[in-house]
Every structure is written in structure tokens, then in C-alpha cells.
């Protein structure tokens, strides 16, 4: 077998390690297990770093929007502030409510954390930089990211706190409602590519900016807009952050969590924000395609731009109310996405366009 992260040219150390491993004479299934474990650790490290970076970046952006500096004390412009925060959270006492539902309370942050990372099995960070190119790629991502809602519901229930319960219930209602327009806007792209594989979707957008689905009129931009709205809700970010809503529910589902368990929720939130942005880039902005720079830089750069968009939403808009949120989804987003997809399917069938 070869490395699933194929770019041995990019990171020659990988192929060297692989040869070393092969020379030990390990049988094939074991070899695969070792390789994938190694990959899992690498991905985990990369994503944890990304999440830490995003936290720092969000604080800087928020600061500059609000006419202040954000973190400034730790290093250049506070670059290791979030690392210190993580260390602080690690050291904190793990406060556990006496009346909690023990297993549910314990597993909720774990599931949230794992679900956030699972999606990265099939997200291509660059040309060939993908752990496994599943033929059901986008379907798989949609399926595993929805696990998050189970964990939020568990956190709400397990805490045995009314605010947490309200937060958990809200998040369940919200994610279920916004899953529909999100999938429906993704389907437009899937329809035209004819494949669910992430690599195929990116390859279909090769050859210049006008091949990116975000710029292919008229369905692309509409699908992108509906996607980004639904994705903001999926990632629980303002203006759709009603499960947390600190001014209403104190902190919503994670009100009883402290220390590392809270950090897991917190990091998972940022990983989720990165996931939905990465999917937006893959589906609508040509994934790793770009000129001159290496493909992974293009991918990361584009993804950070989408994350920036989410951050701008967060720091300029007020929060919607829970019923208005539902209304917006079912009465506006769902009809728009469905009309979009039906007309797109018609065009595809007639072979008129695209």
C-alpha cells in the first residue's frame, strides 16, 4: 500500500518513515493500523493547533472590530495566549455537579470532541493530502458532524440544570432544522458533479475561478448563500448561537462544565467552524485549486477567509430568537433551497447549462 496522505514529495520524511516501517516485516493489516494511527495523531495535532489559532484569531478580530487590541501580552500580539488558556483549563478543577447523570455527563464532551474531528477523515487539505478519499465523502461528513447535536443534548440532560436543558433542547431543534437547507444546498453541487467524493468535487472545479461553483450563475451563488447561513447555524455561531446564548441561558448546554471538559466543547466549536468553512471551500471555492502557491496553502487560505466571514457575522449581528430561528429556516431557507435544487435538476436533466 502507499501512504494515504500521498504527498511524499511534500513531506519526504513520511516516505522515509514508511520504508522504515516496511523493513520491520510487519504483516499488512498491522501495518495499516500503525499507519492510520499515526495519521490520526498527526491530524489531531494539526487540528488542535488550527483550533488554538482560530481562537486567537477570533479574539484579535473581535478586538479590532471593537476598537481594542485583543490579546497583547503573551508574545507578539499575544500569539501564545490561547496555549496559556488551554494550559490553564487543563489545570482547573473538574467540578462535577452532585445531581448529574454520571455517564451522560461524562461522555457528552467526549462525543462532541470526537464528532468534531471525525469529519477530517475525508477533507482534502491539498492535492492528495487526504486521509481517505471515501466515495461517499460529503455524505459521511454530514453524517458525523450531526453527532455533535447528540452530545449537546446529552450535556443538557446530564447536567441536571434547567438552563442547560433548555440549551440542549434548543440545539437539537436548531440543528435538525438547519440540516435540511444545508444538505439541500450541498446537493446542488453534488448534482452537477455527479459524485459524492470530495476529491471528485474539487477536481470538477479545476481550471480557473469561473469554474468554482460559487461563481457559476445562477444556482451556485444561491446555494453558497443558503449554505453559509445554514452552516453558521450548524456551527452554533452568532446570530444563531441560541444553544449557548449567554445572556439568556447563562452558557446553555455547557453551563455546568469546567476545566478540560469545557475546553473540549470549546475546541470542538472552533473545529466545527473550521469544518463548515472547509466544506464551503471544497464545494464552492475550488478546494485546493489555485496558482503558484502549494495546494494546501490555497486550501487553508480560502478556508480562513470563510472563517473570517463567520467571525464578521458573529461580531456585528445580534442573536435571533429561538422561534424566529425556526421560522427563518422552515419558511425561508428550506423553500429557497428546494426551489433552487429543483430548477437545477431540471437544467441538469435538459442538459441546458453548466
Amino acid at each position, binding site marked *: 500500500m502507499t501512504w494515504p496522505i500521498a504527498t511524499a514529495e511534500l513531506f519526504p520524511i513520511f516516505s522515509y518513515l514508511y520504508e522504515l516501517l516496511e523493513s520491520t516485516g510487519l504483516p499488512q493489516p498491522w501495518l495499516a493500523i500503525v499507519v492510520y494511527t499515526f495519521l490520526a495523531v498527526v491530524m489531531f495535532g494539526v487540528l488542535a493547533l488550527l483550533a488554538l489559532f482560530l481562537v486567537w484569531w477570533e479574539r484579535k478580530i473581535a478586538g479590532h472590530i471593537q476598537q481594542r487590541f485583543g490579546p497583547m501580552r503573551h508574545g507578539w500580539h499575544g500569539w501564545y495566549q490561547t496555549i496559556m488558556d488551554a494550559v490553564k483549563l487543563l489545570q482547573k478543577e473538574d467540578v462535577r455537579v452532585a445531581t448529574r447523570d454520571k455517564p451522560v455527563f461524562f461522555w457528552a464532551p467526549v462525543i462532541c470532541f470526537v464528532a468534531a474531528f471525525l469529519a477530517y477523515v475525508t477533507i482534502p487539505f491539498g492535492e492528495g493530502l487526504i486521509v481517505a478519499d471515501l466515495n461517499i465523502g460529503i455524505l459521511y461528513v454530514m453524517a458525523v458532524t450531526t453527532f455533535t447535536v447528540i452530545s449537546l443534548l446529552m450535556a443538557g440532560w446530564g447536567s441536571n440544570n434547567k438552563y442547560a436543558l433548555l440549551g440542549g433542547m434548543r440545539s437539537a431543534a436548531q440543528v435538525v432544522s438547519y440540516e435540511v437547507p444545508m444538505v439541500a444546498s450541498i446537493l446542488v453541487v453534488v448534482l452537477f458533479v455527479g459524485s459524492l467524493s470530495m476529491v471528485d468535487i474539487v477536481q470538477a472545479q479545476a481550471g480557473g475561478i469561473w469554474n468554482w461553483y460559487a461563481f457559476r450563475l445562477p444556482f451556485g451563488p444561491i446555494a453558497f448563500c443558503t449554505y453559509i447561513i445554514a452552516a453558521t447555524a450548524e456551527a452554533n455561531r452568532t446570530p444563531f448561537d441560541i444553544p449557548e446564548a449567554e445572556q439568556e441561558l447563562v452558557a446553555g448546554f455547557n453551563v455546568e462544565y469546567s476545566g478540560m471538559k469545557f475546553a473540549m466543547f470549546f475546541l470542538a466549536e472552533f473545529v466545527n467552524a473550521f469544518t463548515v468553512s472547509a466544506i464551503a471551500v471544497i464545494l464552492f471555492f475550488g478546494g485546493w485549486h489555485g496558482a503558484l502557491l502549494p495546494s494546501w496553502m490555497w486550501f487553508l487560505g480560502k478556508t480562513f477567509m470563510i472563517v473570517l466571514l463567520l467571525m464578521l457575522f458573529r461580531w456585528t449581528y445580534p442573536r435571533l430568537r429561538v422561534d*424566529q430561528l425556526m421560522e427563518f429556516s422552515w419558511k425561508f431557507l428550506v423553500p429557497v433551497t428546494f426551489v433552487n435544487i429543483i430548477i437545477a435538476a431540471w437544467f441538469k436533466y435538459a442538459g441546458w447549462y453548466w
Partner: protein
Amino acid sequence: MPELRTEEFQVNMGPHHPATHGVCRMILTMDGEKIVKIEPVIGYLHRALEKICENRTYAQCIPVTDRFEYVTAMSCNQVFAMAAERLAGIEVPERAEYLRVIMLELNRIASHLIFYGVTAMDLGALTPFLYGLREREAIIDLFEMTCGQRLTYNYIRVGGVAKDIPKEFIPKCHEAIDVITEKMSDYEGLLNENPIWLVRTKGIGVMPAKLGIDYGVSGPVLRASGVDYDIRRDDPYSIYDKFDWKPAVHQNGDCFDRYLIRLDEIKQSIKIIKQALEGLPEGDIKAKVSPNFKPPAGEVYARVENSRGELGIYIQSDGGKKPLRVKMRGGSYCQLQALPYFGTNCFIADLVAIFATLDIILPEVDR
């Protein structure tokens, strides 16, 4: 299919809750996300201010009143000083009156800027908070320049004001109000036409004018319900009748109007300050008053319009150097007592919006 059984449950909102602006506790009876009943529980911040005043001379009471309603501490100073002056028949020099009006109106702007930021923050928009506090900072700097304090001023004294303004005050004040006038368009641009802001505030928490009057609600909250009643104009005190301004009135009584009216009041206050700065006469800043003056026996009620409504002080004197009885009346208390009657039947998020736009400050409720 069996019918789903639902039941109401109770949630304690407070005493420690991010949206209650202090230590207010509300026992909410909820049906899912809907609020069926609100039961405010007050007294967590009770400091017996009225009783403390009874054990101090009139001059010593002024710093206590700072703590009564610290967001607009100037008007608390003012109302106590006014009551004592009426009791003892003290004439205040004209320059002192002008300085008082300038300070009161600056303080009103500062309070409304906090309102702007905090209300937006309660509705989930975190940025306006910093914007509001940024301009407030300029006003607080003016106070610091004048009396050395940034929050509890102890500036307006019985018979006048504590200190004259420094030379650089007037240009700095002009500068500050020019900046605020300019930034008003920023504030309005950020929220006034924001669709999310509109759906969150329009038609939410409508307080009928009659309910407001019945429960003694006053100030901007009542004016947002269409009652054109402003103590500065209807029961003129100090020198408010010399200036050209008119109270802002809105008709709907919902959260959006309560928000708009504060922005309008900032504009009116700027108008008053400009006129007062122009007409500022030379002269004494304080009448000659003995520190231990003894007003004749009697009673007096003085009231001012502060940014939360009618702020009144009742003093009963037995002819001694200390007041026999002091009673403070704050607008927040009345607004909180009216809340259960128009704040129900809405979502918990709406309650946060209503509570924020009532602009309740808890020290004034609990005294």
C-alpha cells in the same frame, strides 16, 4: 398516539445572571420557552441608604446619594441638594445652576450610552457595547477633570457645586459632544435598520401607557409608550426652562421605541449642553452654607428627571442638623414592579430584551 404530557417549570433567573444587570432575581414560571409568570425578588442589594442618611448631616448625605444610583450619580446629588435647599431656603448662584445642568445632561448621555451598549449586548450583539463605552469614556474624563471622580462624583453640593470647572473643560466638552454627535450615526447605522435587531425588538414587550401610569413608571420608558411627560419640562427645576429643547416621545411602547427614545434623548441632551455652555455666566459657584446648617422643621419632596425616570427624595426635618427621615424614590423600582404585567407570554429571550430596555439598575431598586 398518547397525548404528550407537558408541565410548567420554574427557573430562577438571577440573582447571578448575565442579563439582570446586577443582583435581581426573577422566579420565572415557564412553559417550555414561554414565560407564564414573572415574580421579581428584590432586596439583594439593600444597603439601608435611607437609614444611613438619617445619621448624617445634610452635607454628609451627598456622598451617600452617589451610591443610590451610580450610573447617573450626578442627578442623585442634584435631587438631594435640591431638597435640602428647598427645606432651608437656600438660593443657588446662577453659574452653579448652569454647571449643574451641564453635568446632569452629560451624565444622562453617559447613562444612555451604557444603555445602548448593554442592551445590544443582551440581545447578542457584543460590539456596540464597546462603542458605547468608548464615547462614555470622554464624558467620564470630563467629570474626572472637574471633580476627580469617575463614578461617584459628590460634585453637586447643597447650595451649589463643589468646584469650578477647569479652563480646558469647555473646549474638551465641545469636542466630546461633537464626537458623540458624529458617532450617533454609527450607533444608528449599526442597529436601527438591522433586520435581526428589528425582529428582536419591534412589537416585543409592549407596555400600555395606562399600565405604566398605574404602576408609577416614568421617564423614557413611559415616554416610549406615548405619554408626553418629562419632569424637566412639566415641573421645571434648576434652569431647564431657559433652554430650547423638547422631550422625545414615541408611540408604540415596545422595545424598539424604548431603544430609539434613548438615542433621541442623547440628541436633546446635546442640545441643552450646547446652550448651557454658551450661556454659562461668571460668578459664584456656591452659596454660603454652613456645613452643619439646620433647616427649619418641615418636609419637602424634590424630584428630577434622571435617565431612568422620576428620581425623588423626600426629607422630613425636625429642625436638627440631621434629617429625621429620608425616602428615596427611583424609576427602576416602578419599572420592575410593572414588568410582571406586560413581560409575560413571551420567550425568555424577549424577557431579556424587555429587561434590558427598561434599563433597570438594581441599586436604585433595592436602595
